[in-house]
């Protein structure tokens, strides 16, 4: 592909991303649900009622809840029981996870989905090791390649560079009414100079995902240079290595969700 052809394809892809109906990515009901989950006192009946209007989302929640990743001792068949058992924070995480877990047989798309899930896993683990709040970083990890997933086209990897990904983030994530901090964290990952600690953490989590997925499953073939980010977070390479290997069994369970 010539440079001109590539630039044309990139522009076309970004245009089609801007034209996406965001209600297809996150329905109004899902948005209401996420708002309800942030309330000080959650209304289980209301949450369960909203979920009955979204059978596909309900099915995904039950599938993820019953997976070895969550490891409940018996099958949870009832969505109300799932809501009570999981609690608002975990349920919100699962709902965001369902945004990236689109059904597809395309192996290239599945690589991006796996990378989203594993980056989120490592973002959460690194946050917890540094005593930072994990939820926002988990969400940023999940959603940092959401534009690629929802506007996927074959051989898209050839089009992607830092600039295209940064612009795709602006085009989509701002329109989904996501927390501003999360959108800023994700945007920062594609910029060379970002002083935000959460962005630094996300860059490192991104790298751990590329390493953990291996040559055949990683959608990106290069690591981000995180020399400054190690310093920014004050995390030793040996500690990061421990985190990497500790999460491998969880990573394996998570990848089974992507059939």
């Amino acid at each position, binding site marked *: 592909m010539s440079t001109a052809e590539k630039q044309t394809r990139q522009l076309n892809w970004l245009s089609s991303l801007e034209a996406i109906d965001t209600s297809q990515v996150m329905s109004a009901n899902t948005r209401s649900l996420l708002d309800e989950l942030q309330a000080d006192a959650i209304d289980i009946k209301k949450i369960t009622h909203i979920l009955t209007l979204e059978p596909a989302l309900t099915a995904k929640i039950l599938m993820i809840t019953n997976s070895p990743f969550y490891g409940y001792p018996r099958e949870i068949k009832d969505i109300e029981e799932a809501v009570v058992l999981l609690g608002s924070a975990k349920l919100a995480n699962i709902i965001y996870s369902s945004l990236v877990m689109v059904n597809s047989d395309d192996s290239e798309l599945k690589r991006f989905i796996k990378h989203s899930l594993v980056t989120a896993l490592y973002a959460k683990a690194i946050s917890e090791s540094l005593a930072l709040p994990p939820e926002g970083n988990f969400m940023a990890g999940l959603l940092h390649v959401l534009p690629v997933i929802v506007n996927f086209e074959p051989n898209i990897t050839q089009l992607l560079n830092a600039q295209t990904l940064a612009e795709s983030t602006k085009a989509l994530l701002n329109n989904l009414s996501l927390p501003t901090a999360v959108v800023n964290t994700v945007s920062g990952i594609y910029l060379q100079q970002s002083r935000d600690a959460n962005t630094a953490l996300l860059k490192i989590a991104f790298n751990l995902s*590329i*390493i953990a997925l291996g*040559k055949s499953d990683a959608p990106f073939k290069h690591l981000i*240079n*995180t020399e400054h980010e190690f310093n920014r977070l004050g995390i030793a390479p*040996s500690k*990061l290595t421990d985190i*990497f*290997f500790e999460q491998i069994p969880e990573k394996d369970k998570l990848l089974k969700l992507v059939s």
Partner: protein
Amino acid sequence: MRVKTENAVNGKTTEDILNENGGMVLPAGVQLSEALVNALLNQNILHVDVELGESPQTDNAPTNEKKKSEVENTSASEKAFAEYLDFLFLRHRGQFMKEFKQCLLQKSKQDS
């Protein structure tokens, strides 16, 4: 005889195989092909009750050949991981990135 699933190829199940939810995965009396063994392992079923052929493999007495192949597989996966890290870290010359790569390599050898 209860054996590790990975050693049960060509064995015939002597009990129904159930998943962790109690649902039946395979009934008794089924000959386990390699594909079936892999499917059971994917469902996290690590032990099965089977009747094996003339050369049974049990949990307590792994053969020298099985040990040798485990060692070879471990060396191959270690080597593949090291090569992958060489590729990923090729352009990263900073102190922390180099140290991180070394830590990953050392830890992968310790864990294998």
